[in-house]
């Protein structure tokens, strides 16, 4: 294939390009995450979900969920 020098040059290029790409990408992600913090009001959101979740996490629009719960309850009762 390629001779060694060419390969070494390509590896060196890839080293540089790769690190630049990784840093650029993760830097963009930093910006994006900082943006998220602005979109989302941190504290209200943290306080809120806990009490809501028992009712709303599983809206159970299909049979599976309701049935699963009732099945679990039944099994629990049997197990006792």
């Amino acid at each position: 294939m390629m001779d060694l020098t060419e390969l070494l040059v390509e590896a060196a290029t890839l080293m540089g390009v790769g690190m630049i790409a990784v840093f650029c990408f993760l830097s963009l992600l930093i910006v994006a995450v900082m943006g998220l913090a602005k979109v989302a009001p941190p504290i209200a959101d943290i306080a809120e979900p806990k009490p809501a979740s028992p009712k709303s996490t599983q809206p159970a629009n299909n049979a599976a969920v309701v049935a699963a719960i009732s099945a679990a309850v039944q099994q629990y009762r049997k197990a006792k």
Partner: protein
Amino acid sequence: MEGLQKLWLETGIANFEPGQLVMMAVGLLLLYLAIVRKFEPLLLLPIGFGAVLANIPNAGFTEEGGLLYYIYHVGIETGVFPLLIFMGVGALTDFGALIANPRMLLLGAAAQFGIFATLFGAILLNTIPGFDFTLADASAIAIIGGADGPTAIFLASKLAPDLLGAIAVAAYSYMALVPIIQPPIMKALTSKEEREIQMEQLRPVSKREKILFPIAVLGLTILFLPAATPLVGMFCLGNLMRESGVVDRLSKTAQNELINAVTIFLGLAVGSKLSADKFLTVETLGILALGAVAFAIGTASGVLMAKLMSRLSGGKINPLIGAAGVSAVPMAARVVNKVGLESNPHNFLLMHAMGPNVAGVLGSAVAAGVLLSWVG
């Protein structure tokens, strides 16, 4: 710099096609509906995510060797995933309410008029230029009216794989919209007095009846509609494992880990069918419109049948429960309960609506069998 340019040429930005962007937006919309609006999240979250993944340029998810390609071919093209889901749903379903009051099966039958009327409607759409549905296409679209996801996916994978994405999305979306679609129709077709009817408590059902029920259902399906036996058979296997009480290990796995794992894969595979060339068509608009019509007709015919039964029984049946005949378990039964409570705060219809609700599952599996044996 040349190196960076080489990478740049591979970026999504440099390769996006407009259709892909639109389909990603559709995927994100489904994720929004699933997460924020809590519309059928168990399916719409994986479907939406699958739609996003399938439309990434240069990622090859749906090309040979890609993850979604394998999942689709192994699980959907073969029909295995919807059948395993059906087995799990069977293991999760309690037919007690239906066995106690088997007449409710008539409501599950009536609501399937939504399917067959939509089939006719889909063919009628062909009069509009741009539409060219075959009878197989029309059948796959019409099954949306059955309000049953795995049935719709199974039938679409057999009769109209190109429309699978749109059909599955429409089916799950409308199932999630049941609380919005059904109440106005239910109220329009019933009088306040009818909605206030209280129903007698259901008799208890013996274990033996519950064990024999899935065997009886399968037996009749074998005798009269073998084309429905893949769906009905796996459903009955799940239910028999549940009710027999001798294979609790297997029943528990079918109800939990197995159905969960398959649901993830099924959703991703359905989402992978949401590609621009298949979804951004006038047919999709037609499918969405027909799906809404199918739900409305199914609801109406269920309620009208219940009204008839109410008259014949001397007012012992609250016609609202007819709306539960479309299936969409257990959402439709809950809607019935809610509308009933609005008329009479002491009128709890939930248990009574579970009968027609699970009857609707059987009804649409039977309708799917009729379509398969006619068209397939």
